[in-house]
């Protein structure tokens, strides 16, 4: 039996306090009803718990989070998964800018669209690898300064090639997969196209299947399409920029 918390009119601090207390008491399922823009839900939360958010989550959902699964039945404001360590965020809707900013581990799934700077500065460390999967569109600067992990942009309702600028500018680790074509002019400093082969299709398969499990699409037809794979030209994009005094 899940713990239900009515978030109507509740400030984020008491709301988070209540969530933390429930997790500390051993609760593994929490449902937050009537969420209306409360920020910082599950901020810094550590533990094995599933939190269902009914409503629209405010900024920095799951920031610094390590472990929990957060399922949002609605949209999310900016930076869900900001500097997240481990766990899963599933958003049944769209999300704002800087989704998965500096995320170091765990997964973020967004059913529809995300704003600017998605997956910016995502990084990996040893076994920790972050994944951002977006079903719809992303705005410019996707994967900017990316240092590790994987971004998968499915563009399920797309017409024409991906045409948002600043794609993966300054990327020096990790990779971005975009379903379909990408216009050449979008690739920014340090970003290069890489071959997409069957091995790569096998690597994205679990993420596509997980996306379809959450949001109910057909994994095989999505996987059957062509993808553009983008990675770093090198791990030291700015090594040649400087000279000594």
């Amino acid at each position, binding site marked *: 039996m899940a713990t239900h918390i009515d978030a109507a009119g509740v400030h984020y601090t008491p709301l988070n306090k209540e969530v933390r207390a429930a997790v500390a008491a051993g609760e593994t399922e929490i449902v937050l009803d009537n969420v209306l823009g409360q920020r910082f839900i599950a901020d810094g939360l550590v533990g094995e718990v599933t939190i269902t958010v009914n409503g629209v989550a405010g900024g920095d959902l799951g920031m610094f989070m390590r472990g929990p699964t957060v399922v949002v039945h609605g949209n999310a404001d900016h930076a869900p998964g900001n500097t997240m360590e481990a766990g899963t965020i599933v958003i049944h809707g769209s999300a704002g800018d800087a989704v998965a*900013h*500096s995320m170091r581990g765990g997964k973020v799934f967004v059913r529809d669209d995300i704003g600017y700077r998605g997956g910016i500065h995502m990084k990996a460390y040893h076994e920790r690898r972050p994944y951002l999967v977006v079903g719809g569109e992303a705005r410019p600067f996707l994967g900017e300064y990316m240092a590790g992990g994987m971004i998968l942009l499915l563009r399920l309702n797309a017409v024409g090639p991906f045409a948002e600028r600043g794609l993966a500018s300054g990327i*020096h680790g990790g990779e971005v997969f975009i379903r379909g074509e990408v216009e050449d002019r979008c690739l920014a400093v340090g970003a290069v196209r890489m071959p997409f082969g069957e091995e790569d299709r096998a690597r994205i398969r679990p993420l596509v299947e997980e996306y379809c499990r959450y949001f109910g699409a057909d994994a095989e037809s999505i996987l059957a399409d062509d993808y553009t794979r983008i990675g770093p030209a090198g791990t030291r994009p700015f090594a040649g920029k400087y000279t000594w005094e």
Partner: protein
Amino acid sequence: MAIGSVPLRYKITIDPDRCMECGRCIENCPYGTFRKEGDRIVAVSRNCTACHRCIAMCPRDAITLVEHPVDYRSHPLWTPEAREAIYNQARTGGIILAGMGNAMPLPSIFDRLLLDACQVTNPSIDPLREPMELRTYLGKKPSKLAFRRTEAGDVELETKIAPNLMIETPIMIGHMSYGAISLNAQLALARAAHTAGTFMGTGEGGMHPDLYPYQKRLIVQVASGRFGVDIDYLNRGAAIEIKIGQGAKPGIGGHLPGEKVGPDVSRTRMIPEGSDAISPAPHHDIYSIEDLAQLVRSLKEATEWQKPVFVKIAAVHNAAAVAAGIARSGADAVVVDGFRGGTGAAPKVFRDHVGIPIEAAISAVDQKLRSQGIRNEVSVIASGGIRDAADVTKAIALGADAVYIGTAALVAMGCRVCGTCYRGLCPWGIATQRPDLVARLDPVREGEHVANLIHAWTMEVSELMGAAGINAIESLRGNRDRLRGYMLDEGMLQVLDVKTVGA
């Protein structure tokens, strides 16, 4: 046309009558300035950085170092530095990197501010026999206090006081990351902070486990790259500092080159070995003062509102307005880093030409916060080129609550300010990750040296206060009447809100 090499910067000579060919200079110089030729040691002056390690280690005082005279045609505009920078850039096509603080021969405002002292009418205080209060609390102060009477008739404080940091001296050690400096250097600083009853900053490189025993004295930093930042790191620190800007390089980010990201630095920063650690200029989630407020609150929320959050900015012309925004963002302190602030590496053009002096910035920030009635909302920490107790005292009189020292603490550990930190070969074991060089720095002994420095300066501040008839640092803060400007123009006196000498 061939550019050729530029002239030597320094000239090293070895006195053959004194040298006993022990080879310590060869062992000690990581830049390869010395080598053995037959039965004598010769110096390759071109490699010298004036780090002074050879001179300090020579048992016979046989080594002499002089700045090498440059015989370009003299010209007031086309200085040797200007010409050599052009040769360098014409050859390489790169941005010139530089270390340490601003190297332009600009006048110091601190040196043109004179402290006051009491004479007969307003007696001075003798710190030898009078208690002097230098204890400082950093963080929000309530604008008023509310009390209530209990049923038992006692009086209880009703106002909830925000968490503050308590320091026994107004001098703290600024943020220098593991990566920029060695672990032994960080350990020495942490020990010094512990001994002196103050705090040190971790910089943006995470916290190495060897620093955990000192974590109550550490302020953890969150920069745009979020290196080493996780919930444990945030909970370990006594306070959290968001780095927006740095005095040595306002408006640009940080960049630790992959060569310096060895196994231990990699673990601490939580990035793969050998990869560049890029902290871009903006935080990707801060594009406005409202966004900054959101980051401040997210850090407080993550740590359950137990820790003060500082925001560090570079001293730039609109620093006062930004500080007012920071005060309203929920932050507990604003750190203002002046254009003399040090760095491990910055583009020379930024280090030398961007930003404003800390003296002007602090005064402007203090005045702005006072004029808006929000000075109590935020503490003000001054940093960037604090060289002695006089600078500390003047910074506080101009409106700072406390200061951060950086270069001065490194000098206390042996740094000779050679400005070559960016090469990662620091012979003193400070700005290097090379194990043999790091091992040269003894964290215990150098920790004592830094603690001694802070202790000595604290006593000097106390004496200066006593001379001015002030027995509590609270009474010195923003007390511009204890300062007079000497050879400063009217405009500057107005910015500083200080009277001229004789007035």
